[in-house]
């Protein structure tokens, strides 16, 4: 619904008028998950590795800060200027500082080689799931379009000249039979316990595809099609956010993410790929 309202707006309204559009609030749709001043709910199979690294880093940072802090406060209290006491001209031989620096360096090396690089490598290596759900994510000011290949598993040809923001936001070539069963939606529906293989691109400016509960973020760069994958494990309704300033209504560039059981997902896709209904508000 939200997506459709925005698309309708995009199709007819000039940019200035768009800016006045009312903010799409969360009315009506309940978002699942726990949110607060720490990391949000994680509903992915692999996100815990990133969370683990973030936690570890913060323990390390707090330990260092407290360590430094204690010495700092000790010095301020102990060595404040008092009558009859002179500063010590001789340099202290501060071996401990050298050790501290070496420990910091080693710890950083461990964080990088032991955690960050392996996690990043696994994020960048396609999941071995032989049959992932394929989705093309097409960003535009200020909406997300999700293009599914339909039953045949093949995407129809697309080209910018076929783009019509209201009726054909993905620019699927109407003369290509492969595209007949394609589905383009303003909502992202995915089955749980199956990898989702997304290709991220943009029609206009740089956006960033961000699913906080999935620990996934990838810039959508026009002219590039960048793969990103993840593996949802828990059903529910969540949010897709835009993380890169993309214009006036950047803040409202939000889409709903429905993580469903495989049968619910298939039913949705079935309904969507019925002829003459390849695109509607989801």
């Amino acid at each position, binding site marked *: 619904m939200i997506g459709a309202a925005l698309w309708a707006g995009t199709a007819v309204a000039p940019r200035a008028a768009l800016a006045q559009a009312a903010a799409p609030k*969360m009315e009506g749709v309940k978002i699942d998950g726990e*949110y607060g*001043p720490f*990391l949000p709910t994680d509903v992915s199979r692999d996100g815990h590795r990133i969370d683990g690294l973030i936690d570890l880093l913060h323990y390390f940072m707090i330990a260092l800060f407290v360590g430094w802090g204690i010495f*700092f406060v000790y010095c301020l209290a102990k060595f404040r200027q008092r009558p009859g006491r002179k500063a010590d001209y001789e340099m202290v031989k501060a071996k401990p500082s050298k050790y501290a620096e070496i420990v*910091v360096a080693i710890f950083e090396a461990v964080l990088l080689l032991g955690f*960050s*690089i392996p996690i990043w490598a696994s994020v960048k290596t396609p999941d071995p799931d032989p049959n992932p759900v394929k989705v093309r994510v097409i960003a535009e000011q200020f909406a997300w379009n999700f293009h599914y290949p339909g039953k045949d598993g093949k995407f129809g040809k697309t080209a910018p000249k076929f783009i019509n923001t209201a009726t054909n936001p993905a620019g699927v070539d109407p003369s290509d039979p492969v595209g007949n069963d394609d589905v383009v939606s303003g909502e992202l529906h995915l089955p749980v316990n199956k990898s989702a293989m997304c290709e991220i691109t943009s029609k206009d400016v740089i956006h960033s595809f961000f699913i906080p509960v999935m620990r996934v973020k990838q810039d959508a760069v026009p002219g590039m099609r960048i793969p990103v994958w993840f593996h949802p494990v828990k059903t529910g309704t969540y*949010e897709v956010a835009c993380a890169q300033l993309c214009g006036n209504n950047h803040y409202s560039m939000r889409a709903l993410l429905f993580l469903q059981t495989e049968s619910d997902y298939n039913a949705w896709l079935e309904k969507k790929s019925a002829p003459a209904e390849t695109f509607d508000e989801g």
Partner: protein
Amino acid sequence: MSGHHNPSGRHHDHDHGHHQLSFLRKYVFSVDHKVIGVQYAVTALVFLFFGFSLMMLMRWQLAYPGKSLPLLGGLFPPDGVMKPEMYNSLGAMHGTIMIFLGVVPLLVGGFGNYVLPLQIGAPDMSFPKLNMMSYWAYFVGGVVMLSSFFVPGGAANSGWTSYAPLSVIAGKGQTVWLLGMVFLITSSLLGSVNFITTIVQLRAKGLTMFRLPFFVWAQFVTAFLLLLAFPPLEAAAVLQLMDRLAGTSFYMPEGLVVSGVPQAYTGGGNPLLYQHLFWFLAHPEVYVLILPGMGIVAEVIANNTRKPLWGYRAMVYSSIFLGFMSFIVWAHHMFITGMGTKISAFFAATTMIISIPSVIILTAMIISLYRGSIRFNVPMLFALAFLPMFAIGGLTGLPLGLPASDIQLHDTYYVIGHFHYVVAPGTIFAIFAGIYFWYPKVTGKRLNEALGKIHFWLSLIFMNVVFMPMFFQGLAGVSRRLYDQTVYAHGEAVQTLTRMSSWGAWMLGVAQLPFILNFVMSLVASRKTAENPWQATTLEWAAPTPPPHGNFLVPPVVHRGPYEYSVPGMKRDFFPQHLVVEG
């Protein structure tokens, strides 16, 4: 000044200041580094407060989205509610003003210009007219930037980073922004050449490189960063200008469709090219923002612990290393653009490596406190507060510098918290330390200590109220640059923190009033200070206070290192660099 100024002839030229200069040449179009330094500092302070004020306006919309602004509602017709395009303009201009018109000109143009020639015992900068020109280029750049608010469509609103294609298809304000940047970059380039030459050529006799105060070293490295990093940004800006005005497509790929309308760009360009050029400057720029701040803090700490800096040489080597490394970390701002494992591993590794010299500098300054005799005057309070605040800023860079943890935190409030801890309670506290420390040198008057302490404690508290919540917002997943974060469930959940930040910002604004009052009142009210009120060792205090045109009555000769405090066997606890025997 009648065309005659010859810094290299410092041995004979003692008639400085004896010329009758017109008011205009003496105070407006002056070539004296001290006048130019003051011009820079005052202009930059005004910009700093202005840039901060823009943020105080934005904080209203963030705290109370869609509510009309109290008192100042007239700024946002018709209903007093800030619109998203205005929010984005204020955001872009806040960043631009704070960095390019506030902090850098204050640190380099202000402190660098005023203090550096004095600290090296020079009568002026190497190229006084170039110096004047760099100030006026900065001034014009600032005026151009501000004028963009009055352009139809408003000021630039694509962020201070101005990423293409958004910036290329943006309104006219962006063109003005780019032109403004060209002036500011020119100013910085002229300044950096002047600083390098001055430090290399005009040091007093006996002032070897390792007798230089750390502040001069920091300025030296900074000047190289400016000189080498700004040209790519200038190129980036000019290319963007051409994409906007001349129909080129350096940053524009083919097949762009904006609001359903296919664009006429021929294509073949790449939006990421702009980011690479931009961050190639903007990462060294981060060290431009912090190194001179560290320099100021080092001076104040050495002076107020009454002992030599611990690890002076290690600090110098670290800052040189920092300078080199800062040129090969830029792409850590771009992990999320789709970077592969190898490239991201390289930039993550360089980013981890660059943290080491920062740790060394910070550690050296903390160890310098050990067995000192610490005076808690206002400059020292600010310098001391710099240390833990900068530490928070530095440490929170770790999760952002590692690509894996950056996935979740990239472009969230965590980033805003991180770099503001570096630049706001970090660099800006260093700036305050410098202002309280050198104000007597510049004016001959001392700032009021009581007002200064009020200013310090309130600033320290509210800086943290503003920026600490941002780490939690970031962890919660709130993206930066959102006009209204309550659109998202995770944003709504931490809206209280946003409000806390906003109130902190407004109170921080109020906390600057004692400073402004002090700054102006002390000029007229307070008594004349001693020639060397802090009993400091470095050469700027060897010149009369305030220094006349040409600076030194007799060209100073340097006999020792910069921080000879509490030398054993001496009556006084400081031994100035230029004295042969204890005075």
